[in-house]
């Protein structure tokens, strides 16, 4: 309808098919945003605009949803996104100390990416293994009972991987 051409971003055929399948179903937006994030690692603005056009949902609503849920990311994370658990158990066991140490080691704030694009740090709520508190997740790997002194080693392990 508007003069905005379909936003300039390629969706894989899998993603396009998924959107077509879910287009008319209620509650589709969250499902589709999940899929978008799976494809890009985050939700690029162009992708949000394209979803807006394809579903005829205002961009405002997409951002409302995407910023409400902690899971969705609007900025591209580092190649290795370090998630530090701040659930109750991990928080009590020193989760915050881990965050601060990581920030100082990597020289970035929360939700920021290192200049080389390798690392980013974010906090998450309960990973589901409170017995291992404090817990940290990098990629698919879970680190339990983490101590500050271990952090340089863990970072080194992922650097340039």
């Amino acid at each position, binding site marked *: *309808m*508007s*003069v*905005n051409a379909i936003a300039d971003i390629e969706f894989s055929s899998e993603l396009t098919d998924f959107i077509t399948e879910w287009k008319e179903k209620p509650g589709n937006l969250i499902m589709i945003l999940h899929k978008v994030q799976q494809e890009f690692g985050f939700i690029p*603005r162009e992708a*949000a*605009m394209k979803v807006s056009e394809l579903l005829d949902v*205002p*961009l*405002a*609503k*997409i*951002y*409302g949803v995407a*910023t*409400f849920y902690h899971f969705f990311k*609007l900025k591209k994370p580092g190649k290795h996104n370090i998630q530090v658990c701040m659930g109750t158990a991990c928080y009590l066991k020193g989760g915050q100390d881990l965050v601060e140490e990581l920030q100082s080691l990597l020289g970035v704030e929360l939700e920021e990416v290192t200049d080389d694009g390798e690392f980013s740090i974010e906090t998450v709520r309960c990973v589901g293994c409170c017995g291992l508190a404090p817990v940290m997740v990098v990629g698919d790997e879970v680190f339990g009972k983490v101590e500050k002194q271990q952090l340089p080693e863990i970072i080194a392990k992922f650097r340039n991987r």
Partner: protein
Amino acid sequence: MSTVNIKINGIPAEVEAGSTILTAARKAGFKIPTLCYHPDLPAWASCGICVVKIEGSPKMLRACAATVSEGMSVITQDPEIHEIRKTVLELILSTHPNDCLQCLRNGQCELQTMAADFGIREVPFEARVQEIPRDESSCSIVFNPQKCIKCGRCVNVCQQLQDVWALEFIGRGDGTRMAGAGDVVLNETPCIKCGQCSAHCPVGAIYEVDETHKLLEAIHTPDLHVAVQIAPAVRVAIGEAFGMEPGEITTGKIYAALRRLGVDAVFDTNFAADLTIMEEGTEFVSRLTKGTGAIPLITSCCPAWTDYMEKYFPDMIPHFSTAKSPMMMQGAVTKTYYAQKANIDPAKICSVAIMPCTAKKYETRRSDNMQSSGYNDVDFVLTTRELARLIKAQGIEFTKLPDEKADSPIGMYSGAGTIFGNTGGVMEAAIRTAYNLITGKNLEKVEVDAVRGMEGVKRGAINVDGTEVRVAVAHGMANVRDLMKEVQQAREEGKEPPYHFIEVMACRGGCIAGGGQPYFTTDEVRRKRVEGIYKDDEASTVRCSHENPEIIEIYKDFLGSPNSHTAHQYLHTEYVPRPLYRK
């Protein structure tokens, strides 16, 4: 109306079934404080100020969102309720900057009033004001998220009432903030500058761009001839800022106030409303009878609507009347016709418009046609609220002013010109003149009841000498989409258009409830302002635009005939598709 019997603070009351506790209590004369609630909007229940107790129920309810039921016993006030409300208020105050004395809403702020009513003397909580920069990207609206109390009114107005979706909540919990759609600055969103957000904001978080200093500077510039026009809707609303009733007609006092401010020439946009009718009425008749353009013809006086159409319905551009809005016509003839008549160099004229509208600030620069005189046809726009502030600041006792007259030769107006301020008014004024153009005689009854009233979309058929002219009138932007779809569908199916003429105004009730009008507009206030405008029409000796003597004169002396080459040069414009998002 089915009713239920309830008790409010022990007193029996028969109230409308399905109404909220808040409405029922207010009707029964009990005050429940509210902050996020606004009668224009569905209850949002975000602030929690309106909590009440229900006897026999362990939890408190939010009166704005809970409905009454048979036998319910409501308690609206007791020491515990008061303490809870006060705590809620203190929490809000702890996140709100403490600079009331420098705030634009000082004296008109709902939060300030509530703090006064509750007798707040200190806030026991640590101050936690969000550090978010002010958004000054728009030429119409300023957004200061620091002052935002997250009541959600602006977002709901923008999405529900206006269907624009320029604003949204970003984030959650105590990190929630209002932001432009997609978290960009306002000017890069689909914002149509209608300003309804600013008219509904309870505090100083979102407000009109203040240009009052420009008028003072112009007045104090030697050799600059300051010519000011006032819009139809201003005259029935500005009095409210000085304690007068909504709907009271203050035209003469506004003229007088402007002269006391030091303005050189006082004109009336109503004159140009008559001019618009001459141009648009002629355009309509020509499209209808000679097929010179797309039918339905759609009105284009409302700059928020034209902006919306250019973004959301660019395929409707051929349907738009090319006639400029009254404000822009008045500006154009001020710097051409008036300049010639009064023998003033147009370069030395400062043309100012007082408007009920924030989008009018944008309209002055929306395209090159807005400089048809070779200069800015309108140099800047002040809203009704800004003029009221200026009058107060300059120590003018508005209510005590005498009633003065506008200046010639572009100040006289007909009743048709004044009703432009109401929803349906442009249509009615156009019908009065179009009828004359087609039949050569005037309507026996000039009032067109079918297009009056507060219904979101009004449809009617007018018998013009045996021909049925189908018209539709929409106000409140959210009512427009379906109407446009009707037209699009008929076009796609190759059917006869459902209407010949459509009027759209972005704001509910029309310009009388524009985004730049005095605060605290509700449907009751709208109704009074609408009545005021119709009274102004009834009191006019001339009821039709084509009979306004100054209109007859400007065509004789300057424009030739409606839709002439000269008229097109100064009084018409064009539209272009625009992107919804600039980023």
